[in-house]
């Protein structure tokens, strides 16, 4: 009997095209769009050397410090300049006019001047470079005049060093990724789209919600048994949908979910239970038509996903910073955060906290649904 009901309910769900679109195909499509939109987010912006020139006049030849500096910054893979050395200013001007270079330096004694034709980021970099050179050379001159002894104590090397008081410490072994959270919210949203399956199951078991349910209620089958069979079928379908989505995201879109596959699957399963039970509770609690209930579910899921960072990644951190309680009351965020903590943290403390809270929410949703649908006589139909 249980199997008969479960299999038939599964047929009903699988043949509901609208339901299948929202619970399976829509997350797949959205994931594809995410990949198209965020694929460059993690790639470091590459720096291209600036085409520049320096006039090799007598002052340049005599200024060994500046000459050596220019040689250093125009050599190797991490060079700043693609440097052209010209003999005269006219030659450099011609290159500048032709657009072959961004600007050129002219040495005059210890001073260095910069000539550019227009303003822009590359021109600003060239100016900053010249300013830094002038500041450093001026400092060296001052030291030579006032305290030549300091030169012997390695003051020159210290001048070129930058002091950084901040140290970057990784929180886990996973590489930093700016885009994974979007995909975690996608999985969380997809899990919660399972609420539409839960909604359908309750509609088809509550005699005051549908004619078919009336017929089922009139049969010699315990109502809760029929409901449980239907929900089991819905859970099997929904978990399979999430597995397909996970496989697509990890294998096709190549999004990294870390190495804790077992935990990821456990999270997805609990997410499915949470989504289904959420939908069944909303369906049982509101005696409205199906469209109204769908609107309630959709709005709740979208708000939850927004607060979990689906539309703007910063939102997740803003909520955590200014209203942390909301992070723990938003089941979509708990699911997102469980996947996030599995990826970033080597320890399971935060993950287990999220899973515990999700379990508690699922228990509340299931209990609420049971208390509402357990009644077997209705005041009106």
């Amino acid at each position, binding site marked *: 009997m249980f199997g*008969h009901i479960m299999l038939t309910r599964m047929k009903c*769900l699988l043949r509901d095209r609208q339901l299948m679109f929202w619970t399976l195909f829509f997350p797949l499509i959205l994931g594809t769009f995410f990949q198209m939109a965020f694929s460059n987010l993690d790639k470091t912006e590459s720096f291209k050397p600036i085409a520049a020139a320096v006039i090799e006049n007598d002052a340049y030849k005599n200024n060994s410090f500046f000459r050596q500096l220019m040689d250093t910054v125009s050599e190797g893979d991490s060079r700043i300049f693609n440097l052209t050395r010209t003999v005269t200013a006219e030659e450099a001007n011609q290159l500048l006019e032709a657009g072959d270079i961004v600007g050129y330096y002219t040495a005059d004694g210890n001073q260095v001047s910069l000539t550019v034709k227009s303003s822009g980021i590359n021109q600003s970099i060239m100016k900053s470079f010249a300013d830094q050179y002038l500041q450093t050379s001026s400092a060296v001159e001052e030291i030579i005049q006032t305290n030549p002894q300091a030169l012997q104590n390695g003051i020159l090397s210290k001048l070129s060093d930058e002091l950084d008081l901040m140290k970057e410490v990784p929180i886990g072994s996973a590489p930093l990724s700016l885009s994974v959270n979007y995909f975690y919210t996608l999985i969380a949203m997809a899990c919660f789209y399972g609420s539409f399956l839960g909604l359908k199951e309750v509609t088809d078991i509550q005699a005051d919600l*549908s004619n078919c349910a009336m017929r089922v209620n009139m049969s*010699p089958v*315990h109502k809760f048994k029929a409901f449980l069979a239907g929900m089991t079928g819905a859970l099997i379908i929904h978990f399979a949908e999430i597995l397909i989505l996970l496989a697509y995201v990890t294998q096709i879109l190549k999004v990294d979910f870390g190495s804790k596959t077992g935990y990821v699957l456990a999270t997805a399963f609990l997410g499915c239970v949470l989504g289904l039970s959420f939908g069944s509770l909303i369906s049982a609690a509101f005696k409205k038509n199906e469209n109204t209930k769908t609107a309630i579910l959709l709005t709740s899921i979208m708000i939850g996903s927004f607060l979990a960072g689906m539309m703007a990644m910063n939102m997740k951190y803003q909520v955590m910073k200014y209203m942390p309680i909301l992070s723990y009351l938003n089941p979509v965020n708990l699911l997102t955060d469980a996947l996030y903590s599995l990826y970033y943290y080597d320890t399971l403390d935060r993950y287990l906290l999220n899973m515990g809270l999700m379990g508690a929410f699922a228990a509340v949703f299931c209990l609420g649904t049971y208390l509402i649908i357990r009644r077997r*006589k209705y005041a009106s*139909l």
Partner: protein
Amino acid sequence: MVIKVKNLVKRYDELLALDHLSLEVHKGEIFGLLGPNGSGKTTIINCILSLLKYDKGEIEVFGKPMKPESYDLKRDIGIIMQNVAVFDELTVYENIDYFCGLYIRDKAERKRLVREAIEFVGLEDFTKFYPKKLSGGLLRRLNIACGIAHKPKLIILDEPTVAVDPQSRNKILEGIVKLNEQGATIVYTSHYMEEVEQICSRIVIMDKGKVVATGSKEELKGMIALGEKITVETFAAAQPEHLAELRKLPGIESVEWHDKLLSIKSGKGRNNLEQVLDFLKTRNISFGRIYSELPTLNDVFLEITGKQLRD
């Protein structure tokens, strides 16, 4: 006794839907519940099926109190609701199989019963069709098949012919009689008096949640003063003196002339057609067609409640 309802009261807030209603359904009969829309027919059915809470009264089915957990009783009941109750995602066969499977565990037996139900309602050519592809009449037949496939002893049909074409309606009514002949007790609710008159062996007429009359159709018609109704199509306007003379004939209750139609109502138990024809001939009143009708259940309802059954 298959169903016994005693003193049932059901309120929807201020509205008294069932007002101390009592009725009995005997084994093997086709029991008709006749009443206008809103008279409480569906409410009493839902109370009997233990789907609806009620405020007062007792309900017994097969001699036992009916409760939501009376699974042994439910096993022998088949219900065909007013609204079609089938799953759009399942084919005709799958729908019948699903609902039959809620009663019958054995797969082979279920398969046989589903086949029999399909044959019974004449849906052999539509077993792989989805409900949305079926016409209104075929959909109603599927609705019936889902309710009777498990061979129940008691079948409750709540307005099963609403919005059905005449051909399907006849098929459905013939099927109900056949089910009764096979041994099932039938409870049939309708606001179509012709259907109730056609198939029901005993009838309860309801109005405003109360039973206003009970009996066979002959017994119900015997309760009212009205007898035969004669309608004569006249070619000329009726003279007032002729109408006055007609009213004086023995057994005539009322005479009216309107739009070239002469309507004559006679008292209970009298056949006045012959004397009316004699009167028309002797007065040289030319006439066309003549209709003679016996009182209907609508006349019964009209006389008891003062309003038409379809008001």
